Structure formats: structure tokens, C-alpha cells
């Protein structure tokens, strides 16, 4: 029997409420039990993040290729906008979608969705169908308490319309006898079956689990009463508190009230006020707020009594949970509670505090024997409720509906015609209607497993960047028609507009000439597909979002390769536009990726730490794999020594573009100290002049040791570079930030020791080297010490030889990447406590309160470089370390309060600030606790003109505080530079 279930209640806010939990548990039993039922579920692609979330929820319950998508056409909720054209048409499209799946039974799992959101719950609109239609009925509480829930006439009209819409179904599944009675009163002509409800399938295990690690916050020697649930008026907690106030004086002093449930400050305040106003002692009230299921089970087990005073419930799950724990329960005599609790003597009138008090006192004053009896009875009765039972009752209902065979001949084509007719009536253009109906049409999943690798940016234009070198090496190592051992195919794909991805013929992909695409339809991804976003995608990420989210909705996975987070963490070393672009890319990539594959463990850990610190609300898998290095494959024989004479003095090499991030200034200062201290050492710099580093270039060119003991090789060949590696005594690398460390791998292949700045990625890559020592980045004295130690006790040749490194070739690297992706080998994962598809990035990066760190300072500032010449100005590079326990970002609340910014201002001879306003420097993404970022600060020449003696760099939390300590830098030396040009800038 094929059963189709409308899954939209797993996408809307219902997913967090009782209905979502009910449908999921019911589906689990219906789908997994051996009952001949083949379950299909469909999701609405108009709510994309939520559809992907729901797919995850359904994992292990419904087969991936039995989860389908259709696309609703409307944008608004029916309670807000009424029955719009879009909604009418969406209903028709969904009917066509269900007809395509051709089930025996179609289930509308939550027929009241879409009041405030764009969900369009399934309701048959085309008259008789070849299959039977069933809806689940929970309760009619909004109708019964319409003053509370349906105060707005349009909402009431929609609710009533939905209620009457139940007439279009062949049968209803009610969750309790009470719900069954209610259903009959509204639609007497429809068959109704009570299928009951049950506790979560893991609840039993929570009850039996070891509770010793859970702190019970009240006094177990005194009587205790528990309430679990919400706090709106229907829940009636106010009268329960009044009932406490009516207890005899000797009980009032002792009885403790424990309250569990999501509560904000307002709810807390109200409960506390009510409690006090009834003359009850404050320390007997325990407002515990939200508790996990395990903690909840522990509390159920230790309290004397659970009270469920709600005015009306469709079922009454908390009562059943407590009974499962053997906890005595008393409850209201309304709604479904009597059938859950069973014994009429345990019921009370929820409108009467006196009656609630009577019922509580009866239990609290009972003797031990009668309590034990009560506990046993509760446990016994709870066994009547199980999901197995609910699923069996549902299947029985389905079978009874199928028994009398009907003879309609409606097919999916009829449903399509009817939908097209609806579109015509609504004046929706035929092409538009066709688009939505084509999306509603289901097709089989592609079958087999496929990996697709995006190489678009490199295909269009080769900038010879580091990322593009990786792309080309991987693509050349794993050719087309490659299959992994387990038969997964690998294909290369291309996208440069909003039409989607197309297959790319790899032969000649990186040769000059036009890129030819022969396919006329883009790839439709599905279950079994993995897309690896290997190329740099900053330019295209807005295009990627639609196509990749659609692929994920259809069951594909997306893995994004992450090269580094430097533009966000070390923004001072980048072009000013880069952090903004990179930030936008990262936020989109976080939304569309299931996993991130990083090029080093350090980058992977950094990403994990950022996501953890901002409590990113979606889970992410994080892995890393080694890049390849084929350097040694080239022959090094016959290469002439670089040095004309065989100098005896020790020779050090540094390789990398001369730009601020690489720390050349630190190396030069260290060698100045060595040379002036009489050390006879030689320094070779390999690398061209890079972005924004004129002051270092000038310093090298005018150095008195230039071309004597200080050499700069620009534009040398690979062969010459190999000779330098071979002849040097050690490699020095002084970067402030890197995603990888290729020179270290290369030096290691020549068996050379390494002296490196102490950053995580260098520690990691240096494991391959025979010998490595480290120094604090940006500290010439530390580097000097490391070199002197090296000169004093150089590592033995034997040591270096023993550690001949095994670094993967590009082909090995490419295969490692594919294996890791195919077999899900992820070293880390980000698993948020709260998984919420709606809040994905709106709230989490914002700061919501003051940063505090007791009396200790929250921040540490350190001058890395400067002041140095930068364009027409003077610049400082400052390292900022977060010593607090919360992340910092420059996003505050809606008025900007709580944002953390850095600032710089001039000080006069008395050390007083000379301006009230100051330029702010934003944090590009976040600074996580314990982490450091570098920021750049520009010194305004007008401050110097007005006689500034120092500038002060500091952090400010907007609207809260300026943070001590600050960093002060002497700027008197800049005065000459300014006066020379008469106040228009620095000389």
C-alpha cells in the first residue's frame, strides 16, 4: 500500500510544536513497521531552507528517494491575505503532484497549516480521485475558544473554511476520543478513527537512563508538585497558583512548586508576582525554564505529583509522560485529559482553584502505600498508548477505506488539465502555470552515485592564483570518465549564469579558445549526487544559491572547499573590498553547503570555532585533506649553485611574495640585529613585490647589506629556486596568517630545517619537516633568538635524513579528496544545540548584550607594524585578541548598541583626546573567544597638524563602554612629514 503524506508541517513553525513531533513519530512507526506500507512524503520548495531541514528530520524514517518536492506559487499566509490566486493555484498544483505519485492513500497531515505562512495544506479540489484522501484531526480548540484564538474576523473565516474543507476527505484520523467526538460534530458524514498518541520513542530510555549527573534543584524531603508546559491563558497556570494559596498553613510553608517550560523574563516575573501575591513563600517556587528530555524525565521521576490544569487539550502529552515514569497525575476534567488519566477521581474542575486544591491535597497527604498503588496504576495505564498501536489503527483505517473499490478513471493527466483550467480562470499565464506544474511533476531519481566538481571560474579565465593552481592540478589528475572503486562517477561542471550547471568537456578545458557547452538543458541533481564547489566562487555565489538549494531539496549534497579565512581574520593584510566580498560569500556558502572541506586542519578548526562561537543554527560537517606537491618530480641534477663563491657563512632563505602578511619586515629587523651583533649570516629573499608594500621594498633596496649579505631574487625559474633550497641552511617563514604553507613542504622535501612563525597551520605543515623551530609572529627579537639557537646547535644531518617526508602528489591528493567526500570522512562537525532553518544568519552574528569579564581586561591590543607609509597616509597594523567569553562582532541590535568596533583618536601633550568623534574600524566577521585578528588603522594628517603627540587605539562596545587597556603610539616623528607639504597630506 502506497501512502503519501503532506510534509509541510515539518517545515512551518509546527515543526517545533506538538504537531510536528506527532507527525514525525507517527511517520516513523508507519514507515518502519513491517506493515506493507510504502511511505512517500512531499515538501514545499517555496520554503527552501525549511525543506532541507525537513529532509534531515526525515532521514532514517523515509527513504531519500521517496521524499519529493513541489513548489507553491503563493507568498502569503491565508489568515493575512485570504484565498489569493496564488494559493488557489498552489492547491491545484499540489493535487497534480499527488496524482503523479499515484498513492493508494493521500494524507493531509496538518490541514490547518498556512494561516500565517505560505504553506498550502493538501485538500482534494478535483472531486473524486483514484485514491482515498485522509486528514489527521488534532482538535478544534481555536473554534471552541474563538475569542482567544480567532479574534480577527478574516482569520476566523479562514479557520471555518478549513474546518468545512474536511468534508472533501474520505476519512479522518483523530488523535483522541475527544478529537474524534469533535470531528463528528463538525463533519458527521465522514468516517473518523481514533488513532491515539504516545510518548516519544526514546522517552522510555530517558526514564531508565542514569540520572545521577542531573542536579535536582529542589528539596526532595519536602512535598513537590510539577507543572510542565506553556503559559498562555488556556494552560491555566494562574488558577493552579491560586490553588496553592488555598492550602492549609502547615502545607503552604512546605509544598514546593516546580515549573518547567520555555519562559521569558515576562512570564517569569508574572509567575513570581502571582506566587507572592498569594502569600506563598518565594523560596518554594522553582522556575526552571526549558529542560532537555533527559532532565525532564529525571524531574518526572522525583516529584510527588504532576498537575495538568489546562482548560482544553487535544491530547495531553505531559500527563502521559509523567504516567510513563510512574508519577501520580491529576488533571482537568475537560478535553482529552480524562481519557489519558483514566481514573475519574483524579480529575478536577480547572475553573475552580478550590477544586484543584482539593485534588492536590488528596495526593499530597496520602500515605506511602496508596502512593505506591497510584504510581503503579499510572504506569500500567500508560502502556495503553504506543505508536505501534497508533500506526496499526491508521493502517486499519486505510484498509477499510480501500475495501470498496471505486471505479473512477481520473489520472494524473486529468489533474493536470484541471490545474491548467484553474490557472486560466485565475488569469495566470500559461507559461507560468507550466513552470509550476513541471516542478510539481515527479520523476525517478538519477540512480547510482555521482560526484560533480565545479571548475567554472578557472575555465573562464586563468589568473594563475593559488586556488586556480589547485583546481587545475586536481582536474588534470582525475580525468573525465573517472570512476571510484565503488563505482561513483566524476564529472566536471560549469555555471556562469542563472540557468544552472552544465557538463563540461574537460579535454582542453584550460587551453585558450572559447569554452563550448553542447548540452541544451542544465543538470537536474538528485539523491546520490554530491557537488564539490572546488573553484573560487566569490563572483557567482548569488547564482549558486538557487541552484544548489534546489539540488539539496532534491536530495543532493553540497561540499564547499575552503582555502582560508584570512580576509576575515587578518583583514588588515587585504584589499579593503575583500573582507566585504568574502564575508558575503561565506554567509551564502554556509547556507548552501552540507560540508566544508578545508586545505589544512588549522583552517578546519578555525571554521569550527567561528561557527561554535556564533552558535550557527545549522549543522555542518567539516573536514580537511592535504594539497599535493610535485616539486621534487622535476630533476634537480645539473643545477648550478646560485652563489658564485662557496661562502662559509650560514645561508637563510625565505620564499613568498613580498607583502605585509608575509612578515618580511620582521625578518629584516631580526637580521639587522644579528648583523649589528656581529653575526656573519646571509639572507636570500625569493618573491616578487606584492600589494601595498612600498616601505619594505624601499627598505631592502636601500639597505647597506643589499647585494652583499642581503639578496633579493625576483622572477627566478623553478630550477634556480631548487638550487636555493638545496644550498641554504634553513628556511625562514614569518607569515602572520596562511591557509597552507607550501614553502615548508618544499624545504622539507630538500631535507632542510625550518624556522617558522608560530601559527597553527605552520605547526601542522611542519610536522612533515625534519626539524622545525618557532617564534612569535611579528617579534624580531624572538626570531633573532631562534636563529641564534639554530646557529649554536644545528640539527644533525642524521635527524634530517631520518625524517624524509612523505607528502602526497597531486594525483594522491585528488584521490584523497574524492575518498573523503564519497565515504563521508569528516574530522569535525558543528552540531548546534538549536537547529533552526529560519534564523540562519539573521540573528546569530549580532551581539545582544554587554561583554563582561569580571575585573579582568576583555581585550589585548598589540602593535604589529607601523606607523608606516601607506598610500598618502600613515598606517598601523594592530593585533586584537579577545579575552572575554563571548564572540565579538560589529553588528549590534537594531540601534547599533552592543556592536564592538575599534577606533583611533589623537592625544595632546597632556594625554587628553583631541576629538570627540573618531573613525571606527569594523570587525569583518567575528572574533571568537581566545582568537586574534589584525586590523589596520590610518592616522589622519590633520591630527598631526594640530599637534597630536600620540594616537590611541582602543575598542569600544557601542552604547556600553570603552575598553581598557588601550594602545598608545608615539606620532611626534610624523610632524616633519606633514609640515613639508603644507598640510595637504604626508610627504
Amino acid at each position, binding site marked *: 500500500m502506497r501512502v503519501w503524506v503532506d510534509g509541510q508541517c515539518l517545515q512551518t513553525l509546527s515543526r517545533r510544536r506538538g504537531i510536528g513531533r506527532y507527525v514525525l513519530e507517527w511517520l516513523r512507526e508507519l514507515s518502519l513497521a513491517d506493515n506493507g506500507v510504502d511511505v512517500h512524503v512531499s515538501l514545499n520548495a517555496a520554503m527552501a531552507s525549511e525543506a532541507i531541514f525537513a529532509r534531515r528530520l526525515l532521514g532514517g524514517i523515509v527513504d531519500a528517494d521517496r521524499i519529493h*518536492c513541489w513548489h507553491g506559487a*503563493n*507568498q502569503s499566509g491565508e489568515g493575512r*491575505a*485570504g*484565498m*489569493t*490566486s*496564488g494559493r488557489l493555484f498552489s492547491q491545484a498544483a499540489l493535487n497534480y503532484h499527488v496524482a503523479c505519485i499515484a498513492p493508494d492513500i493521500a494524507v493531509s497531515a496538518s490541514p490547518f497549516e498556512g494561516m500565517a505562512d505560505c504553506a498550502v495544506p493538501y485538500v482534494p479540489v478535483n472531486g473524486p480521485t483514484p485514491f482515498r484522501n485522509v486528514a489527521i484531526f488534532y482538535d478544534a480548540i481555536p473554534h471552541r475558544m474563538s475569542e482567544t484564538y480567532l479574534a480577527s474576523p478574516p482569520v476566523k473565516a479562514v479557520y471555518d473554511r478549513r474546518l468545512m474543507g474536511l468534508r472533501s476527505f474520505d476519512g479522518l484520523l483523530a488523535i483522541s476520543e475527544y478529537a474524534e467526538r469533535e470531528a463528528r460534530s463538525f463533519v458527521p458524514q465522514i468516517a473518523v478513527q481514533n488513532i491515539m498518541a504516545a510518548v516519544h520513542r526514546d522517552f522510555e530510555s530517558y526514564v531508565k537512563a542514569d540520572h545521577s549527573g542531573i542536579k535536582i534543584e529542589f528539596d526532595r524531603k519536602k512535598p513537590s508538585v510539577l507543572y510542565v508546559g506553556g503559559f498562555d491563558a488556556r494552560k491555566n497556570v494562574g488558577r493552579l497558583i491560586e490553588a496553592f494559596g488555598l492550602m492549609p498553613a502547615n502545607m503552604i510553608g512546605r509544598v514546593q512548586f516546580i515549573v518547567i517550560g520555555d519562559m521569558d523574563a515576562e512570564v517569569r516575573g508574572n509567575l513570581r*508576582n*502571582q506566587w507572592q*501575591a498569594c502569600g506563598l513563600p*518565594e523560596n518554594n517556587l522553582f522556575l526552571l525554564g526549558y529542560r532537555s528530555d533527559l532532565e525532564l524525565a529525571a524531574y518526572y521521576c522525583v516529584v510527588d505529583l504532576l498537575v495538568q490544569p489546562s482548560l482544553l487539550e487535544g491530547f495531553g502529552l505531559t500527563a502521559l509522560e509523567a504516567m510513563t515514569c510512574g508519577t501520580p497525575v491529576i488533571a482537568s476534567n475537560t478535553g482529552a485529559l480524562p481519557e489519558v488519566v483514566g481514573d475519574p477521581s483524579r480529575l478536577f474542575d480547572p475553573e475552580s482553584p478550590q477544586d484543584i486544591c482539593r485534588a492536590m491535597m488528596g495526593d499530597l497527604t496520602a500515605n506511602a502505600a496508596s502512593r505506591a498503588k497510584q504510581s503503579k496504576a499510572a504506569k500500567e495505564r500508560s502502556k495503553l498508548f504506543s505508536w505501534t498501536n497508533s500506526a496499526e489503527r491508521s493502517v486499519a483505517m486505510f484498509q477499510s477505506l480501500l475495501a470498496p473499490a471505486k471505479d473512477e478513471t481520473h489520472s494524473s493527466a486529468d489533474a493536470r*488539465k484541471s490545474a491548467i483550467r484553474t*490557472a486560466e480562470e*485565475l*488569469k*495566470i*499565464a500559461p*507559461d*507560468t502555470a*507550466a513552470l509550476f506544474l*513541471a*516542478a510539481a*511533476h515527479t*520523476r525517478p531519481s538519477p540512480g547510482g552515485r555521482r560526484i560533480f566538481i565545479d571548475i567554472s*571560474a578557472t575555465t*573562464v*579565465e586563468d*589568473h594563475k*592564483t*593559488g*586556488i*586556480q593552481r589547485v583546481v587545475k592540478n586536481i582536474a588534470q589528475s582525475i580525468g573525465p570518465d573517472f570512476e571510484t572503486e565503488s563505482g561513483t562517477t566524476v564529472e566536471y561542471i560549469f555555471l556562469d549564469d542563472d*540557468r*544552472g550547471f552544465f557538463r563540461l568537456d574537460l579535454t582542453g578545458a584550460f587551453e585558450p579558445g*572559447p*569554452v563550448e*557547452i553542447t548540452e541544451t*538543458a542544465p543538470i537536474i541533481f538528485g539523491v546520490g549526487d554530491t557537488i564539490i564547489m572546488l573553484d*573560487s566562487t*566569490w563572483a557567482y555565489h548569488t547564482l549558486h*544559491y*538557487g*541552484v544548489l538549494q*534546489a539540488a539539496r*531539496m532534491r536530495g543532493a549534497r553540497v561540499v564547499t572547499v575552503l582555502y*582560508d579565512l*584570512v580576509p576575515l581574520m587578518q583583514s588588515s593584510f*587585504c*584589499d579593503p573590498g575583500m573582507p566585504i*566580498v568574502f564575508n558575503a560569500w561565506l554567509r551564502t556558502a554556509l547556507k548552501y553547503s552540507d560540508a566544508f572541506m578545508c586545505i589544512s586542519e588549522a583552517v578546519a578548526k578555525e571554521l569550527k570555532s567561528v561557527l561554535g562561537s556564533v552558535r550557527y543554527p545549522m549543522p555542518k560537517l567539516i573536514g580537511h585533506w592535504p594539497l599535493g606537491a610535485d616539486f621534487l618530480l622535476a630533476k634537480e641534477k645539473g643545477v648550478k649553485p646560485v652563489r658564485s663563491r662557496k661562502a662559509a657563512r650560514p645561508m637563510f632563505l625565505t620564499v613568498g*611574495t613580498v*607583502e605585509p*602578511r608575509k612578515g618580511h619586515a620582521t625578518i629584516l629587523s631580526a637580521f639587522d640585529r644579528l648583523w649589528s651583533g656581529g653575526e656573519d649570516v646571509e639572507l636570500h629573499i625569493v618573491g616578487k613585490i*606584492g*600589494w*601595498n608594500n612600498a616601505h619594505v621594498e624601499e627598505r631592502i633596496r636601500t639597505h647597506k647589506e643589499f647585494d652583499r649579505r642581503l639578496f633579493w631574487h625576483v622572477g627566478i625559474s623553478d630550477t634556480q629556486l631548487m638550487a636555493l633550497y638545496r644550498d641554504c641552511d634553513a628556511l625562514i617563514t614569518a607569515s602572520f596568517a596562511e591557509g597552507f604553507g607550501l614553502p615548508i613542504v618544499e624545504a622539507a622535501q630538500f631535507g632542510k630545517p625550518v624556522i617558522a612563525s608560530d601559527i597553527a597551520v605552520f605547526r601542522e605543515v611542519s610536522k612533515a619537516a625534519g626539524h622545525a623551530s618557532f617564534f612569535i609572529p611579528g617579534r624580531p627579537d624572538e626570531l633573532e633568538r631562534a636563529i641564534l639557537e639554530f646557529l649554536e646547535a644545528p640539527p644533525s644531518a642524521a635527524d634530517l635524513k631520518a625524517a624524509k617526508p612523505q607528502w602526497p602528489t597531486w594525483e594522491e591528493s585528488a584521490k584523497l579528496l574524492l575518498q573523503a567526500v564519497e565515504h563521508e570522512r569528516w574530522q569535525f562537525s558543528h552540531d548546534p544545540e538549536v537547529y533552526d532553518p529560519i534564523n540562519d544568519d539573521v540573528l546569530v552574528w549580532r551581539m545582544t548584550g554587554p561583554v563582561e569579564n569580571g575585573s579582568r581586561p576583555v581585550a589585548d591590543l598589540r602593535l604589529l607594524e607601523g606607523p608606516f607609509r601607506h*598610500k598618502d597616509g600613515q598606517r598601523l597594523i594592530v593585533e586584537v585578541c579577545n579575552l572575554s567569553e563571548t564572540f565579538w562582532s560589529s553588528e549590534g541590535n537594531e540601534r547599533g548598541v552592543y556592536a564592538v568596533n575599534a577606533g583611533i583618536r589623537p592625544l595632546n601633550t597632556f594625554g587628553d583626546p*583631541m576629538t570627540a568623534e573618531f573613525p571606527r574600524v569594523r570587525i569583518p566577521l567575528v572574533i571568537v573567544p581566545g582568537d586574534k585578528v589584525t586590523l589596520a588603522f590610518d592616522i589622519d594628517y590633520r591630527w598631526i597638524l594640530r599637534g597630536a603627540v600620540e594616537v590611541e587605539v582602543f575598542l569600544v562596545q557601542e552604547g556600553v563602554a570603552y575598553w581598557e587597556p588601550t594602545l598608545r603610539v608615539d606620532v611626534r616623528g610624523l610632524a616633519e612629514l606633514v609640515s613639508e607639504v603644507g598640510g595637504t597630506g604626508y610627504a
Partner: protein
Amino acid sequence: MISYAQNFEDIILQRALGHVKEGAYLDIGANDPVHDSVSLAFYERGWRGVHVEPMPVQAQALRAARPDETVLEVAVGTTEGNVQLFAFEGTGLTTGIEAFAEQHVSAGHALRELSVPSVRLSSVLERFRDTELHWMKIDVEGMEADVLSSWDASPVRPWVLLIESTLPNSPVQNHEEWQDAVFARGYEFAYFDGLNRFYVHQDHRELLKSFGPGPNFFDKFQLSGNSPFVGHLREEIGARRRETEQVQAQLANLSAIFQQQAAGIAQAIEQAREQASNAALAGAELAQTQAQQRIGALELELERLSRDQDALRQELSQRSADLRDVIGQNSRLLDEISSSRDSAATSLAALNKDLQRTAAKSATLAEERNDALERLASVESETKKSLIASAQERDALRNQLQVVRQHRAQAMDHIEAMSRQMEHLRGQSQGMADVADMAALRDELDQLRQSTFWRMTSPLRWMVDRLRRMAFGARDVVRRPVQPAQMQASEPVDVVRTEFLPHLVDQDVYQKVKADARP
């Protein structure tokens, strides 16, 4: 000691009760934990007590400042259930916002009504049943009599009572109203300080000797900085601070000139923006009102249709009842026939006629019933049609709204453009933008391109696009013709496609369905 109270009440009480270590008080109408607080001087000496304060903001402040004391957020009196109070909206935030609130008071809408539980004094005093209560203050803005009436039969007797005995903000005394109730509970009058009256319970008559002189040198007190009695000093300090600020302002005059210029431009733009947005808003509101009126009319129409439907239904049921009646008559007639066979011969012809007539009538009735059923069906289909029509009409109205919104957006764009112009002006005034900058920017771009690090991380799209057309010559992409799945321009407003839709669509299926859909 430091005195915080408004009128030296804490000094007088301290004189009488200073010998008590760690005593207890009950402060009804406690107000702020510092400002004019009678209890703070005692709190600082280790006393602890209970505060009654119905205003949420002040109660919150009290809880925060006195975490180890009890704060009851209630009103005291004889009222049953809740009492209504008025609070100033927005007070209790920062001083800046308080000033804001004052503006609202003058505009006449800053009062907020709130409802708080009311409890009887006796129930509050109950907390001191087993301990001593050394003083109780009542300052409830004229409600003293009501508070005292709710003392009931409680046996608790504070040693000293301190009750505000003048009408709010005036020197007129009002203690006649309630003083008898105090005497009746065994208190003797001790002292009047111009604002409050002090009473001592007869069990502690020895305290009476401490009262008499007003606060004086021998009380050895100092005033807190908040006291109105040091207002002149506060002003003096303020003046000094302002002088300092003036000096600083002069120092910063260069930037101030720039700011003035900018402010002038900003003001002009603000005016323009206001004009533009007023005009746009007025248009939008008018359109919205019209839209609402038309929706209202449509709803009336719908209501009328449903009334008609009801009437038809009623008529149908009436006809059905008639039919039942006729059938009943018929059977009665048959009964008569069987019971009176002898008269049958004579009346048979007549009866037959009757029978025929009835049969004809029932046929007509059945026809009428069918007719009614058909009409019901047509009304139902009309209802459905009008549902669709109203959906369309609503869409059309939304379309209009959309147009109005677009107008508004254009106005906003205009404002934005003006803002940009302002930015530009400001930039010019600061001598920032000149031709040389352009050259420098271009140089920087070239440098940027040479940096391998930038290459690692930075093929920006705008850069790619521009460079493609320049020296670097990006490659062309050649495609076979691809038919993109597109939506038409004018659609009902609530038909919305997302960026995901085209990627869920199989081209073949789309073409097939499109062929079906085209008329």
C-alpha cells in the same frame, strides 16, 4: 552618616533607633532605591526590610539595588483583586530617554495604564509576626487612609510609624482623615517635620524623648549629592564642567566647522526628504483606503450571496416538509378507504380524482425540489466564481498598491541620490577626491593584481568583468541555444516564483506541459 531621604526623615529615625543593630523596616511606596530613599541609610548599616512598590520600573530598580531584600510589586489597600495605576511610558531607561519621555508628557500621550495586584496591609505585616518591625513608612500619594484601613486585625505593631501627612506637593495637612486609626492601634504622636508625621507605639514610649528638635549639628550627618539642598553646588559643578567642555569645543573648532557645513546640507536634504515622503505617503494612504473600501464592498456582496443561499436552503426544506405532509395525507386517505368499504362505490370516482390530483401535486413538488437543488448548485458555483473573482480583484488592488509602493521607492531613491550628492559635497569640502586619486587607485589595482595573496582569495566579479574586456581577454562561452524557463511579466500579485523554481524543472516536462497549457 549620609542622609538620602527627601526631608531628613532618616536622620530623625536614626536618632530614635540608632541603637538597634540589624533592625527591620517596611517601606510602603519605596520608590527609588537611592533617590529620596528613607531606607538606604539603614540598609548601609546592615538593616534589612521589605519594600512595597507597584511601579514595575522602580520595583525592578529596587530588586537590582537590594538583591537581599524583599520587593513586593503590588499596591496596598482595601481594593479586591487588581488596581489600575498610571506610569510614564519609557521612564527608567537612560537619562537621555527620560528627556524624550518628558516631551511626550507635554504632547499628552505618555501615560500608560497598568494593572497590579492589591494586597491588604495585614497580609504584608504578617511577614513580621515573629520578628520586630522597627519602623514602617507610608508614602502613597494621598491613599494613606486606605492603606491604614487594610491593617485589619494584624497584631504586628511597628515601633515607629512615619506617614506622609500633607497633600501631594502642598503643605496642607490631611492627617485628620486617618490619625484616629493610628491612635486606636496604640500609637502616640511624636513629631511633625513639615511633610510627615511620626508616631511611637506605647510599648516603646522611651523613644519619645528622641523626638523634638529638627535635624541639627549633633545628628552628625552629611547630605548625599542627590539632595535638593545641595542643588546650588551641583549647578556649580555643572558650570565648571561646561566651561571645560567649552575649552575642548574650541580646541575642536576645525572639525566643528566641517560638521556645521555638513549639518546645513543634511538639513536641506532632510526637508526635501520629508516633503517627498509626505507626498508619497499621502498617495499610498489614499490608495490603501480605496482598496480597503472596495474589499469591504466585495465582502458585503459575498455576505449577501451567502444570505441568498441560506434563504434558498430554507425554501428547499419548506418544500420538502410540504411533500412529506402530502404523502402523510395520502396514506391517511388510503386508511379511510379500507375502513369504509361500503361507501367505497359511491366515493371511488371522487377518490380516484383526489388521488390523481395528489399524485400530480407531488410530481410538481418533486419538480420544484429539483429546481431548488439546481438553483442551490448554481449559487454554490457562483460563490466559487465570486471567490475567484474577489481573489483576482484583490490581486489587482495589490497591484495598484505595488505601483504606489514603487512610486514611494522612487521617491526614496531620489532622496538617496540627494544623500549621495551630499556625501560628494562633503567629500569635496574635505579635499578628499581629486584627479590624482584616480591615478593612485589605478596604480593600486595594478599592484593588487600582482599580489599572489590577492590571487589566492580575490577574483572579484566586477574585476573579472572589467578585466575581461581589457588586456586580459577572458574566454567566451559558446552554447547551443538553451530555452530558459521564464515567467510572464504581468501576473496576479500573489503568484511568486523563487530562485529555486527553475532548477527543479525538467526541460522536457516543461515543454510538454507548456504545450498542454497554451490555448
